[in-house]
């Protein structure tokens, strides 16, 4: 079918690259299954699965290299490598995948973090094949989520990603894993059901306007008042007209903003739960704490970004007027999240390591939320600069936080494996026996707390710069979060590595990180990327510039 100018198909000679990218982990699963039938030893399967994850990574890099970051068309950054095939004609569902600057960064993050999660689960001894298959399945689900541009598939992958995550937590998790997995699953699904209903409403509304669609790009353009072939008017009007047709206006009044506001809150809550925005964050500390290392890594590094990505992809373009209306509320929630995350982390400086890192995640996701609120406050026009800065900042923060939190969870897992302790009060002075470990973890921690020169700083700097223009009050107060997260993380470092050596760990010397160890090689690429992006953030920022400046 002919594509509108803002959708660019991949070059003729290319196979359906994104579909293959999405399916490549599934092929890995099939191969693991075959290996299982052939009774290949678990050790080889571990090696194989970890190596296989390089395939999606390579494929993603190919996309990255051939991606044209400057392509814009019809008022938005062009969506590239588009594949669009009718799937369910009855409800006009298309199989529609493509990447733009936003999703490409997330795809790269996913493909980078999955090998790391695999390396982190090398010590799994219990149902190895299942564990690695589930990790691959989770990768497919996450890639599918970031690549899909039709709501139907978007939602399928959104929900389906919960299933492997649920089993990973449920089978290999900590002591209270059952409760945590349940809460995580049910909470997320309950949030997203509203969104599902809303999209059905949107479909029916666009149908009554003569253009039934689940196409996220088309709906996003309608929301921003950009032209879409086959339909006129903007999304707010379409929604309002349909509400009038249904007779809802008799109850809720004749203000179109009422209806877009309802849509706004429904979408917001669905994604806010995943992003762990205050007060929807309570599942997060439990889940991160109880999940096995690989689960914590993927959950914190990639899955929580699914919420932010959804907000950027759906919430802001669809209902810009309502988003502007509630930007201050979002900003306030972001601020509370930032502060409460920081203090939450501070309260656990004598508690569990993973829980502390979990709370800092709430804090960092608060910054992302702040950036999104800042973008929402200024839809188009007036100050494109600040908008673009905030979007870029959010994206950078998502990538940087993914890498640094992934590294922290990885190292926390490694530390647990060495000591079988997770309470901060049990450690002390480990630097004496494990200097290399302390160095690596220190760097991950500094990247996480936003030390200049590492990627975390770039994200936070851009977010504060971008948010300052529109939400100065919240931005000022949010700096409190910066200080106290830093304090909490430094205290964590102090409790583990500094001070007098706890005599329990005198024999730990042999287990320091070495360049022959897997833990080291799992952490190094993350730290290297954090350093590179900290000094030269263009590879990530450049991606989203077109997408960010245009809309």
């Amino acid at each position, binding site marked *: 079918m002919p594509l509108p100018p803002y959708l660019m198909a991949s070059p003729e000679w290319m196979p359906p690259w994104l579909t293959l990218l999405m399916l490549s982990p599934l092929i890995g699963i099939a191969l693991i299954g075959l290996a299982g039938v052939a009774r290949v030893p678990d050790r080889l399967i571990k090696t194989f699965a970890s190596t296989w994850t390089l395939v999606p990574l390579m494929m993603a890099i190919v996309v990255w290299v051939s991606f044209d970051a400057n392509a814009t068309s019809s008022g938005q950054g062009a969506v590239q490598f588009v594949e669009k095939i009718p799937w369910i004609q*009855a*409800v006009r569902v298309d199989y529609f995948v493509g990447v733009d600057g936003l999703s490409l960064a997330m795809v790269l993050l996913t493909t980078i973090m999955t090998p790391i999660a695999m390396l982190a689960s090398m010590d799994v001894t219990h149902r190895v094949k299942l564990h690695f298959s589930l990790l691959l399945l989770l990768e497919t689900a996450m890639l599918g989520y970031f690549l899909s541009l039709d709501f139907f598939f978007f939602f399928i992958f959104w*929900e389906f990603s919960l299933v492997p995550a*649920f089993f990973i937590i*449920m089978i290999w998790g900590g002591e209270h894993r059952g409760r945590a997995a*349940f809460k995580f699953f*049910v909470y997320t699904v309950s949030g997203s*059901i509203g969104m599902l209903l809303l999209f059905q409403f949107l479909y029916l509304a666009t149908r009554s306007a003569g253009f039934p669609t689940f196409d996220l790009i088309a709906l996003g353009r309608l929301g921003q008042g950009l032209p879409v072939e086959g339909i006129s008017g903007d999304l707010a009007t379409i929604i309002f007209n349909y509400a009038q047709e249904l*007779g*809802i206006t008799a109850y809720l009044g004749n203000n179109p903003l009422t209806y877009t506001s309802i849509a706004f809150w429904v979408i917001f809550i669905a994604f806010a739960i995943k992003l762990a925005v205050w007060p929807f964050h309570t599942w997060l500390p439990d889940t991160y704490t109880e999940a096995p290392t690989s689960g914590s890594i993927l959950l914190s590094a990639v899955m929580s970004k699914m919420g932010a990505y959804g907000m950027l992809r759906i919430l802001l373009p669809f209902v810009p007027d309502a988003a502007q209306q509630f930007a201050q509320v979002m900003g306030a929630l972001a601020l509370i999240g930032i502060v409460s995350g920081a203090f939450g982390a501070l309260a656990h400086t004598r508690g569990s390591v993973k829980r502390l890192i979990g709370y800092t995640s709430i804090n960092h996701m608060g910054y992302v939320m702040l950036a999104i609120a800042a973008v929402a406050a200024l839809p188009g026009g007036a100050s494109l600069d600040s908008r673009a800065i905030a979007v870029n900042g959010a994206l950078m923060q998502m990538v940087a936080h993914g890498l640094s939190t992934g590294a922290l969870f990885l190292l926390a897992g490694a530390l647990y494996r060495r000591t079988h302790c997770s309470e901060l009060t049990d450690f002390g002075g480990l630097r004496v026996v494990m200097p290399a470990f302390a160095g690596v973890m220190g760097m991950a921690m500094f990247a996480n707390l936003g030390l200049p020169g590492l990627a975390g700083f770039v994200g936070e700097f851009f977010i504060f710069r971008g948010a300052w223009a529109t939400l100065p009050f919240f931005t000022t107060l949010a700096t409190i979060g910066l200080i106290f997260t830093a304090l909490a993380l430094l205290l964590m470092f102090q409790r583990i590595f500094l001070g007098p050596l706890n005599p329990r760990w005198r024999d730990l010397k042999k287990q320091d990180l070495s360049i022959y160890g897997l833990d080291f090689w799992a952490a190094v690429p993350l730290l290297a990327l954090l350093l590179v992006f900290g000094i030269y953030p263009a590879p990530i920022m450049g991606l989203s510039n077109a997408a960010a400046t245009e809309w």
Partner: protein
Amino acid sequence: MQFEMTDIPRILPEILLLVLGLLVVGSDIFERWATDEAAQRERSHSAAWLTLIGLGMIFIIALLQSGYIPGTQLAEDTPSNFFTNILRNLQSGGPNSSTAVEPILGAFATDHLTMLGRLIFIGAAFLTVLLTFDVRPSAHPAEFYGLLVCSTAGMCIMSGASELILAYLAVELTSIPLYMLAGYFRTDKRSTEAGMKYFLFGAVSSGVLLYGMSLTYGFVASIQAVPVDGNVLTQFSRIGQASNSLLQNDQLITLAVLFVIAGLGYKIAVVPFHGWSPDVYQGAPTPITAFLSTASKAAGFLLLYRLLVTAFPGLTGSASLASDATFTGWTSALALIALLTLIVGNLAALPQTNVKRLLAYSSIAHAGFVLMAMLAWASPQSIDRAIGTSSLIYYLVVYTVTNIGAFGSLAVIGLLTGGDDIKNLNGLARRNLGLAVLFAIFVLSLAGIPPLSGFLAKFYVFMAAWQSGATWLVVIGAITTIISLYYYLRLLRAMFMQSPTTTEPIKTPAAMNLSLVVACLLVVFLGVFPNIVLTLIDQVQLVAGL
């Protein structure tokens, strides 16, 4: 209007089913009748094989007749040879032929709705027979299978009946064998109890149904201007004309509709007509439970749908709460029943400790979702109604496959672990990973997790209810979907997380395995490639409506 020779191909599947039923019972005479275990097993297996092959052949014949497989629908100018002649004769009774427009004698429609119904029921019966292969043999195996086939024939007639008397007879033809099947294990207290309870409940419901039907007939006959020969006034289309001509709602016809809904309510097990189902599902032999909860329920829905849509189009009303005047007609009654069903079904499933009973409540809850699809008829636009019909049939197909799989897995588990409490599921993944994964897929599909077909079915049904204006019901449906996650996840937790009492691996019998794998493939396939079956279902609008 007269019955003609050319009408025989139109009812060929039903005729074949009846013949098969008689054949299964009759051929039992030639078996070795002995009381020892081996002989009983032999007898039971030969009856099962005969039924299985017969049902398979009838399924293929029905499929050929339907012309649903791409390429099998003959064009007008296809040259004659041996095969095309057979196919042409078959398809002359199929849903695509010109004769299918008019019901036989005004009583039995052979349109796409009937055809899809037949395929669902025969397919379900086929999978059920596969599940029964390794259940302990009883003294009279042939009767077991014969009754199953008779009941299937009854269901096919239910889906095609377009006249009150035939509809009633079909309901009875379906139900009476099922009463016996539910109580088939005579020596098992629970099974006997189930059969008896089902029978008593069914008898009362039949009474209610008959009462509704007689009220309907009385109403139609009483408003005719000129006296009409009585036996055509029970046809749905005639009732439809009469109820359409009403200027305002008549209390008599309102009562009649309510009684009909209440009478059929027991077949589809919706609240408050659901009382029998948890007990019966729990007591009946598990493969029969699978059959009861799927095919029998689907047949009830198809009959209810055809009846309400064609006989009471003037009383459709709407379930919308937009203003006081809009909440009327049978759609609103169905919406109220759906509301109760969703709430009671899902909440009652929460505290269950027996998986069979839990799944029984879950299937009650699913009936509520199916009812939501029927609400789409509230909109006068054919495009909205089309979505309602497709979502109804898609849900029924998906639900049938999924629930047969779920109860089938449970039958295996019950057979191998000796019980069907949740604690029997403990650590199943470690004893038989394949079975645990299959069961998990069925359960996740029931819970509506994408990309399994249960998700799309719910998605579709919600959409149908949305556009009918029953927003409140959609919201309740969404909330109860979340509630349902609790009990579905409990099953997963037991299988994958709890440690088993014994790690001894268990082995699934081959026939049951086949049935489960087929069901599982369908569950995944229908979810990932829904277009294929939805194009078939979309044809239903052409005739079924009126």
